[in-house]
């Protein structure tokens, strides 16, 4: 019972809410790192995948990049980034996080674009729309829910892996957990864990809300057909309707 009292004390000690090692600062570091990584990944992957999806090219790559990506542990990617850059802190962490965020965004965007009904595409072209117009006015809006699902997947995975950045002298909420382990301070580690868990859930729910907003009809499918995935096999036959593609690989 003293453990719970200590945890409560940790959360209510004002010293823990101030300064470089305070909760607000660490929370901000975590959100900033995660947000930037997802943003960069979107900028890098989204346009490419939209075009590939529109043209129907590069499908093998677009789909299997996630299959392979999920099979490489995020912990490994983080340490490899540290070794490649020979650096610590934000830079290698950012590189690793962007690398982790790209596959789900790439794959989902491609899959979402391909899943658009071919007849719709043809009638749009028949109406005289250019390729670009078809992409922006027909395909992308229809693919939006799946694209959003991909961004949501990426975001949750990034928030989780950003926790490990503490191992390479990064900041963020992971500091409480890693330092807590090292200092045998179970209360600090637990407190940090609660904060990280809350942040991850909030991220998932918030982006889920956004996903619902961009879904025509407003409802996200509760039990979509899950595409068959795995490093050994590509995606099986896709249904014509929107597919909620791969679930996030846990870090």
């Amino acid at each position, binding site marked *: 019972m003293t453990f719970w009292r200590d945890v409560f004390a940790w959360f209510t000690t004002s010293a823990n809410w101030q300064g470089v090692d305070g909760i607000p600062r660490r929370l901000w570091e975590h959100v900033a790192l995660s947000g930037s990584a997802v943003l960069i990944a979107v900028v890098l992957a989204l346009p490419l995948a939209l075009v590939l999806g529109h043209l129907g090219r590069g499908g093998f790559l677009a789909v299997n990049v996630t299959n392979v990506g999920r099979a490489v542990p995020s*912990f490994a990617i983080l340490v490899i980034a540290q070794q490649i850059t020979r650096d610590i802190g934000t830079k290698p962490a950012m590189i690793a996080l962007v690398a982790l965020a790209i596959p789900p965004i790439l794959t989902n965007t491609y899959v979402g674009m391909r899943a658009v009904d071919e007849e719709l595409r043809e009638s749009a072209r028949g109406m005289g729309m250019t390729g670009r117009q078809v992409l922006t006015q027909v395909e992308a809006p229809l693919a939006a829910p799946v694209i959003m699902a991909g961004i949501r997947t990426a975001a949750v995975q990034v928030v989780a892996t950003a926790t490990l950045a503490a191992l390479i002298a990064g900041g963020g909420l992971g500091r409480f957990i890693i330092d807590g382990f090292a200092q045998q301070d179970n209360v600090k580690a637990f407190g940090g*864990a609660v904060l990280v868990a809350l942040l991850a859930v909030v991220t*998932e729910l918030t982006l889920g809300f956004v996903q619902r907003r961009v879904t025509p009809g407003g409802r996200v499918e509760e039990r979509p057909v899950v595409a068959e995935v795995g490093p050994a096999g590509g995606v099986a036959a896709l249904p014509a309707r929107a597919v909620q593609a791969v679930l996030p690989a846990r870090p």
Partner: protein
Amino acid sequence: MQEALPCAATDAWLCLDWVGDHTDEIGAALRQHVELTVVAVVIGMLISAPLSLVAWRHKRAGAAILSVTGILYTIPSIALFGLLIPFSGLTFQTAEIALVGYTLLVIIRNVLAGLEGVPDDVRESARGMGLTPTQQLLRVEIPLALPTIFAGIRSATVTTIGLVTITSLITLGGLGNLILDGLRRDFRTPLVVGSVLSLALAVVADLLLVGLQRLLTPWARGAAAG
């Protein structure tokens, strides 16, 4: 004193002589990794089975189960370890509780999706043949849902293999120990070996599961299954 390993003192990504000298350690790490993974996935399947059936039969309970396992799935693994350690210590059990937890959402979701995907006319003919709901489930629906269920098991397995590496931070680790060693010692070879073997293990596990799936669903072989 031996000669300094010329390779290890450089920045080489892979020193084969180190690998050759440490096959025991690598083998032990691999074995531990496989053990942690298999236990997690099997227990995950055992727990998911009844939960899936409950969710299948009772929609409201199903929604609750999916919510809870969904939240569990969202919690980052190092955080989940941090939440469990004050109660279950730095043990195999702590790691497994977390690892099993992560398999639940994926497997249950896929079981439900698979069952839902059974064509209505097949269900009706089963009913017409006089099968009870349980017989229908065991003899018709589950076998037809197997490809989707397997997709879930494959996904859960690959995910678990990745997560096991993080258990190196709580004194277990499997191949994660090699990765952590690489970080701690500024030594690229164990890092590369640990990473490559994790990837290879995921591919092999996936292939084995696909093989098992084909064995158990001979009628699906003609289809486009991956």
